[in-house]
């Protein structure tokens, strides 16, 4: 299966650690991906208003680019891109009228879209195509006894129609962490929203969420949290500064992308981890565990 890789905006700057670690890890696993030519921002959030067709253009345009590349599907890393593009795709598949309007609007595209490009998240590729057994067999550096709390957030699992796992009790990230040799730490708030885009004009509410979510993970013995979304990463990691200001008892924890631990396990260089992009420095923990 040849997949076209859709990075999305934030993976080229604030979340370069997500992109570089993922690309290194999947190469080590023998998966070949090419970045989509001339991709554009997906819009980050799926349009919930029934008549708001214009915001489906961006996702559909990216799907046309995948077709132009002759790929079998689109590979996403960012949970928000995954959700936005996959949901637009589902709407196009279920509504030929909407699809016709969109195609008419984009009449200068060389191809009309037909709702025929499947959208995958990297976790699905690892679980369903490669399988976690094979991932486990490819581990060069086991994560040992690292205690990892997997945070799913919203858009990997909701709504159920497009989610990649159980809507209330997903385990795909935990299963991957176990395949890499880590101790997976389950915690009750693993699918509770971090308050998302509220971070721009209402960071106070994010501090509340981060306090609860991080404290819940720490309470179950986690040493590190992993995420699959750059907005979750920003809220749970960078906003720990605001959280600590508001809640003096708050205890910090490093937050990594799941791909960074995957890359470590696959023997990637530290350069691909870009550990300087974090707010809470993960290096002391990783060094202490002999992982970097």
């Amino acid at each position: 299966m040849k997949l076209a890789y859709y990075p999305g905006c934030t993976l080229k700057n604030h979340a370069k650690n997500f992109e570089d670690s993922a690309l290194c890890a999947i190469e080590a696993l023998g998966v070949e991906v090419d970045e989509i030519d001339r991709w554009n921002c997906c819009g980050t959030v799926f349009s919930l208003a029934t008549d708001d067709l214009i915001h489906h253009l961006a996702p559909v345009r990216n799907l046309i680019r995948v077709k132009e590349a002759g790929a079998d599907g689109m590979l996403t890393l960012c949970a928000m891109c995954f959700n936005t593009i996959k949901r637009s795709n589902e709407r196009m598949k279920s509504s030929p009228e909407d699809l016709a309007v969109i195609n008419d609007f984009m009449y200068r595209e060389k191809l009309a879209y037909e709702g025929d490009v499947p959208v995958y998240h990297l976790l699905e590729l690892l679980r369903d195509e490669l399988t976690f057994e094979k991932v486990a067999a490819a581990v060069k550096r086991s994560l040992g006894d690292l205690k990892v709390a997997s945070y799913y957030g919203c858009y990997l699992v909701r709504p159920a129609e497009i989610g990649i796992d159980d809507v209330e009790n997903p385990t795909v990230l935990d299963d991957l962490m176990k395949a890499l040799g880590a101790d997976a730490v389950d915690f009750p708030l693993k699918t509770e929203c971090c308050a998302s885009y509220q971070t721009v004009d209402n960071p106070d509410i994010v501090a509340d969420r981060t306090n609860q979510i991080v404290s819940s993970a720490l309470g179950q013995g986690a040493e590190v949290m992993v995420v699959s979304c750059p907005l979750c990463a920003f809220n749970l990691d960078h906003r720990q500064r605001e959280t600590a200001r508001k809640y003096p008892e708050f205890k910090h924890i490093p937050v990594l992308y799941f791909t960074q631990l995957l890359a470590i396990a696959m023997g990637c260089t530290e350069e691909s981890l870009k550990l300087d992009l974090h707010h809470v420095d993960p290096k002391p923990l990783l060094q202490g565990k002999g992982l970097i």
Partner: protein
Amino acid sequence: MSPFVTKVQQLSGQNLLACYQCGKCSAGCPVVSQMDILPNQIIRLAQLGLREDLLESKAIWVCASCMTCNVRCPKGINIAEVIEALRQIMLRRREDHVDVKELSDAERADVPPIALISSLRKFTS
């Protein structure tokens, strides 16, 4: 049915009268502590067509579109879509909730594109 209720139902694609006020949407909402009216109350006020109470509420701008209420509603109502419809009614009057010019340079540089774009998509027309 008032034009306002019809509009909310159209924009959201939801049948407001299906709600029987069990409160499950509000029970699981992660940002409910900052809401002046709770998600189940939003649905109730919308059934009754109480336009000003809804459009002037803080709650519609506190919702993070996390979809938790949607996946839990026993009546299959997409509450997040109803809240989006209310935001859209305001935004289509050019009543933006966020003004990017009011953010300091530091704030703008601090947050990643994914945060800025989603905030502007949700809170500006």
